[in-house]
């Protein structure tokens, strides 16, 4: 290994053949590395060699680069002629000959090799101690498709892809703001995966960004293949079944999170983007909530909350009722349950555990199988388990209903990693209530609740804003308030001042003969005299509005100031 490193750290030699030999020795046993030799069209006819990895480069770009190097217009060749004797031949090619948009000069072999492996093409030229890196990244990639795991009825249909640039572009296309920052770093000693940390300056708390970067920089690992590698290494409460980092395939969700003052972490080669900090409730909220009428949005959100409660507690409650507290079941129902269980040879707890496991098996099998077979699995599963097991008297029909209900409920939780964690935590609850009855249920529920309350996600309480209770943030918890009502950002944002200054929409006042355009113009110059016909109420509304606008401008000024300071800082740093 040290041999390889030694070679890598070498400077380029003036003799092209030595360089080519070194590169060849480093990249031998690689079928996909292509070597292309050419001669420059100058008087000396310097020999040049181009290296690239086939498949991760765009061949068109390579060809264009070659064209620049081999044919050249008279003006350019003159320039090359004059400078060719100088030592910085590479520089003159970069400035005078190449059309490539991001051609770089490489001084060491290491840069060149890294460039080759990243999907660029590395060019060395005889009599030059510098090489050139033409950007040629390309190759096959998946196009933007509808996200598989999170679908919406109304809302944008684009989802993240495996390409990090596409992903950041999808977000930037949504937030065209100068404050949107996409900071890059590279993680993984072998994979050299690109990581982007994105946030909106001024909205996000600076300490949060610092914390995220600090945690990311601590990571030492050879390879990162999926964002979960990072998620597990930066999360709080690493042993907890609750996930404290939100992952999503939806650019609109990331954009919304950024606007709330969160930080997004893009990882190359995976469509799943991480968002921190995450509250428990974020996992139960879908994008649909915000794209539909707020009443509908609230309703479906409640449906999901109920689904959560059902999938967490229903099996436990059923076991609790049928094996400990039968007196609580309404008599008619108790008879029905008893009649279904008449021939079942197993205790309820055992039956429940077995059925839950069978359900998980079916779900897993349906997921892993190729799609057409997956459907067959689910048909076989539902037929065998649902019908035959009941008729054979092994499982009671009620238990099938309970397990199915639990399954359906857990599917309606929009974030699948959250739905997995809920599946996990219902087992201790089930076992506790199956062995100790109500006492076990209460005790285990309390333990789970204490655990959930005690964890934090990047400094934010996991169950906020429910507990600790944040009155200002309630507008987006139980009820999704109309957009014109959500005037503030959540408390986790640094700038949680006015987010919007909308009034409740209302039809124009009929008594007032002003036209809409008049009104708008009035609003524009808020200090303009109100017309004598306008009544007092109107005036007061306008006063309020102007106040708000003033406040907003003050906020903006502050922001601008911050921004300037920051620019100053960055300049200083440079």
């Amino acid at each position, binding site marked *: 290994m040290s041999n390889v490193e030694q070679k890598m750290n070498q400077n380029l030699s003036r003799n092209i053949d030595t360089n080519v030999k070194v590169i060849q020795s480093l990249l031998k046993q690689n079928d996909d590395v292509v070597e292309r030799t050419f001669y420059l069209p100058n008087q000396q006819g310097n020999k040049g060699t181009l290296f690239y990895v086939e498949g991760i480069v765009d061949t068109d770009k390579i060809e264009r680069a070659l064209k620049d190097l081999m044919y050249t217009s008279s003006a350019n060749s003159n320039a090359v002629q004059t400078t060719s004797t100088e030592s910085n031949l590479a520089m003159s090619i970069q400035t005078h000959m190449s059309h490539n948009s991001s051609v770089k000069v490489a001084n060491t072999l290491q840069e060149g090799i890294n460039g080759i492996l990243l999907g660029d093409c590395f060019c060395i030229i005889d009599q030059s101690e510098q090489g050139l890196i033409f950007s040629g990244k390309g190759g096959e990639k998946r196009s933007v498709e509808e996200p598989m795991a999170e679908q919406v009825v109304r809302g944008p249909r684009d989802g993240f892809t495996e390409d990090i640039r596409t992903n950041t572009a999808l977000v930037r296309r949504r937030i065209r703001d100068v404050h949107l920052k996409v900071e890059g770093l590279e993680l993984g000693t072998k994979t050299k995966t690109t990581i982007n940390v994105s946030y909106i300056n001024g909205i996000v708390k600076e300490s949060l960004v610092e914390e995220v970067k600090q945690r990311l920089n601590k990571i030492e690992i050879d390879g990162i293949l999926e964002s979960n590698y990072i998620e597990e290494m930066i999360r709080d409460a690493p042993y907890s079944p609750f996930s404290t980092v939100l992952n999503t395939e939806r650019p609109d969700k990331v954009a919304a999170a950024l606007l709330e003052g969160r930080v997004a972490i893009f990882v190359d080669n995976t469509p799943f983007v991480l968002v921190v900090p995450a509250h428990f409730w974020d996992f139960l909220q879908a994008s649909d909530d915000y794209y539909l009428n707020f009443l509908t949005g609230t309703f479906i959100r409640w449906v999901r909350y109920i689904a959560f409660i059902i999938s967490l507690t229903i099996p436990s409650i059923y076991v*609790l*009722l049928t094996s*400990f*507290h039968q*007196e*609580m079941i*309404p*008599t*008619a129902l108790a008879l029905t349950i008893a009649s279904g269980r008449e021939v079942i040879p197993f205790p309820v707890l055992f039956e429940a555990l077995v059925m839950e496991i069978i359900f998980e098996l079916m779900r897993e099998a349906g997921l892993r199988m190729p799609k057409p077979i997956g459907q067959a699995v689910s048909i076989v599963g539902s037929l065998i388990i649902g019908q035959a097991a009941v008729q054979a008297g092994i499982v009671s029909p009620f238990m099938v209903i309970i397990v199915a209900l639990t399954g359906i409920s857990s599917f309606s939780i929009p974030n699948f990693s959250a739905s997995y964690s809920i599946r996990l935590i219902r087992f201790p609850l089930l076992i506790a209530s199956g062995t*100790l*009855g*109500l*006492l*076990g*249920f*209460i*005790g285990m*529920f*309390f*333990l789970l*609740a*204490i655990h959930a*309350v*005690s964890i934090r996600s990047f400094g934010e*309480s996991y*169950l906020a804003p*429910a*507990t*600790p*209770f944040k009155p200002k943030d309630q507008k987006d918890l139980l009820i999704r308030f109309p957009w014109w009502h959500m005037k503030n950002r959540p408390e986790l944002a640094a700038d949680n001042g006015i987010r919007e200054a909308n009034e409740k929409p209302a039809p124009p006042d009929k008594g007032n003969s002003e036209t809409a355009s008049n009104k708008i113009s009035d609003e524009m110059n808020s200090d303009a005299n109100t017309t004598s016909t306008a009544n007092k109420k109107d005036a007061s509304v306008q006063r309020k509005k102007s106040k708000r606008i003033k406040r907003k401008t003050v906020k903006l000024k502050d922001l601008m100031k911050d921004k300037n300071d920051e620019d100053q800082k960055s300049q200083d740093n440079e």
Partner: protein
Amino acid sequence: MKIKITNGMYMALIINMVYAKSIGVTQGSIARDVGSDMWISTIIATVSAMLLILLTVMIIRRMPKADIFDQSKAMLGPWVGKLICLVIFIFFTLSFGPIMVTFVFHLKDFFLPEAPLFLFVFIAVLVGGFAIYFGIEVIARMALIGVFSILLLNGLLILGALEDFDVRELLPVFEFGITKPVIASRHHLADWSIVIMMCLIILPLVDNQKEWGRSSLVGVIFSFIFIVMWPILETGVLTSQVTSQYLIACMQMARSAHLGFFLHRYEMFMIAFFGISILTQIAIALLCGSVALSKLFGLKDFRPLIIPVSLIMGGYGYWVVQSHNHAMDILENSWVSLSLSITLGVVGVVWILGFFLKKKFKSEKG
């Protein structure tokens, strides 16, 4: 301790600390004394509790950063300070008796009569001890969930009981004169004494110092609203005679609640909510006991003491609940007199001595 809790959490702690026992066990005791005037006794006790809690706020305000232990140490010297630590630790150990009575009898008598007694105490202490390991802030947040569950429980009960409510049972008011309800209010005031003691320890941690008095009062008033519903419904639906017959009167109330003819009982769901509240109360009592003991030994952190304190308090709780008779005797006689004398003693002594030793505070502050 740098940890701070918000005023809202503080109110939630107050509500959880007083709720569980007051709605049933206490009401049974009061009903045995004053019949249908239960709710009047409840009001009287609440008013006296308000006065006491204001007094507590006054005391802590003198040295806003120090709890009762530190204050008494600064004021009266280390030995008296340690004595007060000991007294408060004993108080919380004693308070575990009634708390355990409430928890164990609710679950054991009505749901799991065949389960062994130690299991209930064991689980209570285990869960409580686990909870306080995370510190006061987590429990304070849990208390908010507790309040939420109390709300649900009350709502469920009202749904099921209002149909059978008969206002005639509440009349006539002051059936037994005025003195008797005042005397009977001692049972409820004993519940409040736990809150007062908790405030002496927790108040310095509360965020907004200006609002201490108001938050305390609002907390008491909210607790009162949640609690007073029970004696009124118990009288109106069950009649005071029935209430007085039961050890856990609120369970009888919950048992008789029904939604139409189909859901003829659903007390299990109410108890599930109730459980969250009372487990929070257990956790807070354990926490206060541990803090008191850690101050007694001069430790900086209370966590090493969780297990011994849990054992002591759990053991005492087990000793109390081992028989109904025994439990009732302790609950209605010795607990009431001991808790009230300790609370009034500590609060009164510290308050009065504070006037003579004002200089000490100033020197401490400087």
